[in-house]
């Protein structure tokens, strides 16, 4: 199974590169293996695949996406991709029925040495707005593990590659831009922190503007 997962991971990243020729822009951090929480905009199921693809192989193995269990446990193939290939931290998004606390699950993963990929909007953005309001999860995570750097990551153009409801992707060039890390400051309120994190993500240059 482990070999299968490796082969599948290779095939998925190769396919992602074929379609998007994805390029990483390391603006605020260096690509060095250090524990981080990457938080990114969310427009498609391919988001974490793209982010994962541009990480150097050594960092990739230690980086786990946080994803909704309802989606990734639905069919055997999704379960294989979500669990075995990406080693995702699968959380139950339904507040009323869930047994595990998602923040605890993420904190456990961090304690295990992993870096995380999270999407603080909580769901895919299908609006015209660049970014939805952030859910409070990222604040609680930062409170639980304040010593880990939070790195804003802007994934550009993927919404045009595969808009919602389409099955066939259109090959277009995508970029993944890593911004400067931030941490929860002492006495920072939830709203102030969420606003600051959201602004940090929005202020990253988009490929169309900063092509030079």
């Amino acid at each position, binding site marked *: 199974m482990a070999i299968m997962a490796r082969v599948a991971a290779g095939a998925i990243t190769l396919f992602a590169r074929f379609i998007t*020729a994805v390029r990483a822009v390391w603006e605020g951090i260096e690509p060095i293996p250090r524990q981080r929480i990457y938080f990114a905009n969310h427009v498609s199921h391919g988001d974490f695949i793209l982010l994962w693809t541009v990480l150097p192989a050594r960092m990739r193995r230690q980086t786990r996406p946080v994803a909704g269990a309802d989606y990734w446990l639905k069919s055997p193939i999704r379960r294989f991709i979500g669990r075995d290939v990406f080693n995702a931290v699968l959380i139950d998004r339904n507040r009323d029925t869930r047994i595990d606390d998602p923040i605890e699950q993420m904190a456990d993963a961090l304690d295990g040495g992993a870096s995380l990929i999270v999407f603080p909007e909580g769901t895919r953005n299908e609006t015209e707005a660049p970014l939805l309001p952030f859910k409070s999860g990222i604040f609680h995570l930062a409170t639980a593990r304040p010593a880990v750097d939070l790195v804003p990551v802007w994934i550009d*153009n993927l919404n045009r590659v595969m808009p919602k409801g*389409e099955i066939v992707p*259109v*090959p*277009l060039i995508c970029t993944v831009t890593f911004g400067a890390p931030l941490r929860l400051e002492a006495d920072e309120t939830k709203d102030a922190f969420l606003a600051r994190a959201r602004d940090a993500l929005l202020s990253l240059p988009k490929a169309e503007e900063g*092509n030079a």
Partner: protein
Amino acid sequence: MTGHQIDLLKLLAGLAAVLVAASLVGHLLQRRLSPDGTNTVVENLNDRVNAWWVMIILMGVALLFGRMGAILLFGFASFAALREFVTLTDTRRGDHWALASAFFIVLPLQYYLVYIDWYGLYSILVPVYAFLLMPIVSALRGDTDRFLVRVAEVQWALMICVFCVSHVPALLTLQIPGYEGRNLLLIAFLVVVVQSSDVLQYVWGKLLGRTPIAPKLSPSKTVEGFIGGALSATLVGAGLFWMTPFTPVQAGLLSFVIVLMGFFGGLVMSAIKRDRGVKDWGHLIAGHGGFIDRLDSVIFSAPIFFHLVRYWWSLT
């Protein structure tokens, strides 16, 4: 080993010699002027030379594999170019099917038709069939916002990146008496003339360039660079007559046409980049920018070269 492979290897050996010289000069310049990597002109020059090594090795391997190799090589170049081009267009959700069929139906079909040598269809597939069918696909989605601009952009992308580029491997289908089995050398001739023109214009421009030729479009292009580059590339082309079915004078004249088309093609593609507010089409090749940045002059010269040779030399 057949005759054309020996000629191709001769050519590759010649190019390798030029590149070895360029790499040595680049290395010396770097030690003199840019020991800490701060002289951008020298660094860019070395990036370019390194990328040339990769491009010439890829080209050589593909051409040694014959028709299939050439089809796959230029088919992939078309794909990468189309990906860059469409990235810079303003298409909308409503164009999704049209774009997907451009990539996954029109492009492979065009190259398949070139492969099976169906001239009557591959020369009208994009200008007629795609031209009529793609706007229908977009119209069916019902989004009329900037409709004409969007369908025109998709059509332009296909003409430039697929139709024009596919005329390079199409050179393999020409039947020239006394030149059977050697058509791969026509591709090598076209590519070497176009690219040496680009390189020589760059070199002449850096050495003597004073007067901008199109300051609004491309500030780095100069009259001196253009004249020096065009004339010396024409001479290079004339000197390559031994691998073509042409006499030295014919090879020189054809090279001149190729060089002119390539130069103006570069200007047109610069105008599009200016319009879109970008410096390069992409980032795929270090020092060169994107695929289209390297292909733009081939794109404009390939169909013209193809039809000139087809009209005057080919039986078909």
